[in-house]
């Protein structure tokens, strides 16, 4: 049967059965339809993509399912697209209108994020049950508050200091303010792990399946531990990269110097920048992704369910490097293959463990989420769900 029963309970290994070539065909056909309909087909393409990825993800032999209604999502997209257009036009007409639009979108952001989580989870099923996201709207605002606080403080400072600087006798507060502003980036950097931890905590402790409600057992200490290791790795990767790029640039400069028009953009520098970007993704990015996935999912659990995530940097790094190089070399056509390969590695590193027979789970009452505008916002405004 699907679930095996060792002493400790039921192991539900996760398998990803999708194929790159099949997803390539789905992607290209739907991308063409999206472009020729000037984007109107996008939600339909997205539903098809999610259905494919969900359906290819088998947890203990049972695939996930996606139930989003593309017509409802289209309405959400049109709504949010209007918001985005108004937002980007506002800045063109006057700086004041741009500032107001920015504040309005910033104020809506946590609510849209919460809606998108609710929508995505409520439309994901497994063994006929729907997942749920139980985080409240107020909780979402609270979760974003630490991240928004420096921005709010900074804005207030600028507003306070602007008139002070105009006054001739107000030199002293201006100096203090400048010191404060100079110290702010450092404080913000040191606070970042705590802010992100607080945000992730809200997200991970509000998942629901049947009677199971998730808990998040990563403490602040573990978050700073990861941040510290990341910092150490940045030093190491940074050093290696600097050496590599110096060599590469020297070689390239030799090759291009004779052909370069005197005032053209520096081709060697552009290629080096692209190389640095790809290498950063393959080293630092892969390290962050693997450690973060393991930390978060090994310590997100509910009464009867928990996970084992064993994503290794050793396997993710070469895959990331290959994905990027092939995607660039094929002008993007390799993208669907890259996405499938990454999904397979990340998902198959995870095993779900259940202390009880998963067949005993019962659907919780209510929890429908029909508002697709949050999901549309997540796409159009680039909110990363990062489930």
């Amino acid at each position, binding site marked *: 049967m699907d679930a095996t029963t060792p002493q400790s309970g039921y192991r539900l290994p996760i398998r990803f059965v999708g194929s790159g070539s099949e997803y390539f065909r789905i992607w290209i056909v739907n991308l063409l339809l999206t472009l020729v309909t000037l984007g109107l087909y996008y939600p339909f393409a997205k539903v098809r993509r999610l259905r494919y990825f969900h359906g290819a993800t088998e947890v203990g032999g049972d*695939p996930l399912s996606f139930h989003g209604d593309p017509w409802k999502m289209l309405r959400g997209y049109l709504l949010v697209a209007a918001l985005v257009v108004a937002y980007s036009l506002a800045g063109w007409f006057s700086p004041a209108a741009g500032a107001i639009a920015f504040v309005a979108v910033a104020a809506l952001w946590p609510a849209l994020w919460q809606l998108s989580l609710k929508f995505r989870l409520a439309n994901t099923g497994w063994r006929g049950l729907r997942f749920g996201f139980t985080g409240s709207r107020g909780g979402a605002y609270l979760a974003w508050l630490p991240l928004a606080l420096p921005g709010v403080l900074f804005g207030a400072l600028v507003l306070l200091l602007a008139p002070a600087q105009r006054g001739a006798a107000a030199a002293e507060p201006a100096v203090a303010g400048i010191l404060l502003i100079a110290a702010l980036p450092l404080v913000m950097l040191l606070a970042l792990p705590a802010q992100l931890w607080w945000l992730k905590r809200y997200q991970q402790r509000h998942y629901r399946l049947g009677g199971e409600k998730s808990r998040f057992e990563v403490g602040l200490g573990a978050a700073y531990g990861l941040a510290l290791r990341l910092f150490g790795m940045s030093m190491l990767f940074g050093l290696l990269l600097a050496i590599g790029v110096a060599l590469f640039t020297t070689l390239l400069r030799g090759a291009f110097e004779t052909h370069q028009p*005197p005032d053209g953009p520096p081709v060697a520098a552009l290629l080096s920048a692209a190389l640095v970007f790809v290498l950063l993704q393959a080293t630092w990015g892969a390290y962050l992704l693997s450690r973060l996935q393991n930390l978060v999912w090994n310590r997100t659990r509910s009464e009867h369910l928990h996970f084992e995530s064993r994503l290794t940097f050793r396997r993710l790094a070469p895959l990331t490097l290959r994905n990027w190089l092939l995607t660039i070399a094929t002008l993007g056509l390799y993208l669907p293959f890259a996405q499938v390969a990454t999904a397979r590695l990340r998902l198959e590193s995870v095993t779900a463990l259940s202390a009880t027979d998963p067949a005993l789970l019962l659907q919780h009452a209510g929890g429908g989420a029909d508002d697709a505008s949050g999901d549309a916002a997540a796409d159009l405004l680039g909110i990363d769900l990062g489930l």
Partner: protein
Amino acid sequence: MIDALYFDGRSAAARPVRLRIEDGALVLQEAGAASESGAESRWPLAAVQWPERTRHGQRLIHLRGGGTLRVPDSAAFDAWRGDGGDGAGSWVVRAQQNWRATLAAVLGLVVVAAAGFVWGVPLAARTLVAALPTTVDAEIGDAVLAQIEQRWLRPTALPQARRDAVRHAFVEAVAAAYPAGDAPRWRLYFHAADKRLGANALALPGGAIVITDAMVDALQGADDTLVGVLAHELGHLRQRHGMRALVQVSLVGAAAGVAFGDFSSVLAGVPAVLGQLAYSRDAEREADAEAARVLKAAGRSPKAMLLLFDRLRPQPGEGSALAIAFASHPMDEERKAFFRAAAD
């Protein structure tokens, strides 16, 4: 008849059932101990959401009201259902299943992307910019001018007489080229600049033309060329190239975002940058055409522009294909040939 597992949507327990279609309904027959006479439930076909055909993975059938059927044997399911997949999307699904259709989609995508890039985006940008009030240009141009004045420009060191002479020559040329007085609005600024800007002239949305001291000095005694350079910038203003560039970047960026955005926003930004460089070369050609037109109208020869390339680029470079893809201006040789031809 096909075997499936039924999940009722209330519990995660699986119940083995046997499926058949009868009288416009999907019939679930519980494969219980009572075998043939096991309990049956019926679902009108309108309440059944069939899965799209895929090569990999199992088949999930969703029933209105929350039930789900899982068919582990996909091949048997496809044989059972035949071609009766879900109505609306079925031709899309067939295209997805077919390598020939996929290849056609790849070609179609290339054609649509190329057509959109060559005609669609510039046309859309022209239309959108035409609808924007010119106060928007001025707003943006002022902000940009303030920025570059602070960062790259210093007060001019040119004598007043020299500045007046340049301005006067240009005013006359513009008046000759626009006898009806319908020239685009322009304001001329002289500025000293550091080495990065060098001998240069630029046009900002809203009408500001900035020319650097180094440019005026380099064209000492060549007033025709100087007028041509300013007329080139006037061409940018007339076509509102700055505003069009902004719209074009947004449009290409949005299209690339649809294609690559869920993977990497950096990757999605690349086409916008490369695209802008290509559009910028077209804009330069249009501006050169305006330069030639104004020079001729003012009774000056477009050939004067050739001097620009000789004085500013002592060693003209041979362009490789890669360098052309990255360059914002057309190659010098092409521009020189244009001005030579315009003089005839």
